[in-house]
């Protein structure tokens, strides 16, 4: 790629390409969403750290349980762990249920059902369908709905999402996802992280969408 093409690429990354449109409602809404963006690098680092911590913690928990299965006290502990995150069922299983429910609703192409898993306080960072405000946290039902509607348009009608490596620690869920588009290209997103409360996804750090390794 020659120097002029690289410079052209740089021009395309202009965060405010239309200063005259700054007063439009859309621009104001986008700028409003952009407020926390400045902290995104830190936030991403924090979230990545949190994903690692959750996974390490769960790994340690599983080792501990496997090593002491015979001990009654740890059997009780295992039961507690299952209730808190690993086993499903009960109020504490809601974080996992919300994430799974979101993907079930997505695969049913039901935007209203999808939105049941978000609230006005919900935020999503790094959603790949977030074209107009790429990289900025999406906040609130209207904004999230508009972006997920784009997602329904390009992915879900043809190929369902699948999720794997779902792990729960307290109110935090981590997982990987994948789907194929209508051209048969496979996409993977490893390392989603979401904080769930009251059955709603409150803060979802969307993993990077990349071509799946062949």
């Amino acid at each position, binding site marked *: *790629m*020659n*120097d*002029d093409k*690289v*410079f052209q*690429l*740089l*021009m*395309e*990354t*202009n*965060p*405010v*390409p239309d*200063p*005259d449109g*700054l*007063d439009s409602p859309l621009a104001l809404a986008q*700028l*409003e969403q*952009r*407020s926390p*963006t*400045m*902290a*995104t*690098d830190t936030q*991403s680092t924090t*979230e*990545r750290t949190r994903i690692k911590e959750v996974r390490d913690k769960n790994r340690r928990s599983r080792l501990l349980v496997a090593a002491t299965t015979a001990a009654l006290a740890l059997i009780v502990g295992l039961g507690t762990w299952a209730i808190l995150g690993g086993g499903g069922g009960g109020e504490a299983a809601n974080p996992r249920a919300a994430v799974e429910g979101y993907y079930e609703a997505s695969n049913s192409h039901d935007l209203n059902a999808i939105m049941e898993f978000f609230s006005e306080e919900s935020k999503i*960072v*790094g959603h*790949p*369908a977030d*074209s*107009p*405000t*790429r*990289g*900025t946290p999406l906040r609130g039902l209207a904004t999230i709905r508009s972006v997920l509607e*784009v997602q329904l348009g*390009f*992915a879900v009608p043809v190929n369902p999402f699948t999720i794997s490596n779902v792990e729960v620690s307290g109110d935090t869920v981590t997982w990987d996802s994948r789907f194929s*588009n209508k*051209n048969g*290209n496979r*996409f993977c997103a*490893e*390392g989603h992280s979401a904080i769930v409360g009251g059955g709603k996804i409150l803060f979802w*750090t*969307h*993993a*990077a*969408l*990349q*071509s799946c390794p062949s």
Partner: protein
Amino acid sequence: MATRDDQLTRMYEKHNRAIRAYCLRRIDDADASDAVSEVFAVARRRIDDVPDDEMTLPWLYGVARRVVSDHYRSDRRRTRLTGKLSSVRPLVPTQPDWEVVQRAEYDQVHAALSALREKDREVLLLAAWEELANDQIAATIGCSPEAAAQRVHRAKKKLGSAFRALSRSGPPPTVANGSERA
């Protein structure tokens, strides 16, 4: 005869969006609002120094440049340009496969930009984001138009070289590591 306040009002009405955009491209919203106020406060104090017509905006950019620079120097308010650079926008809504490629290219050009010296980054962004001509860049940074033209030319070459070097060595870490910000 127009008063100084009239002159300032006209200047604000004509240029506040451009100055706001300049600040928003480099610092966060809250600080950008403060910075815009500061720029026009300086303009008010130095109204006799403000050049006429087409050189007014570059002069204001020059003030904004120093104001933003002060914000960078303040640890409390510091916002990394790389954070701002992550807030890129594509030209059109896209299919995901195209978008993945596009994101990788944007990440790569930002990584290349980050590898340059501050002075090179500055003239490149004035040319790329503010779309200033060489004489306007010269008025903004305080040099001759010829020197500005040379600096832009050299900076473009450095950006291209850094971009191609990254292409040879693989995608930038944010993509390779699969972070949220690919």
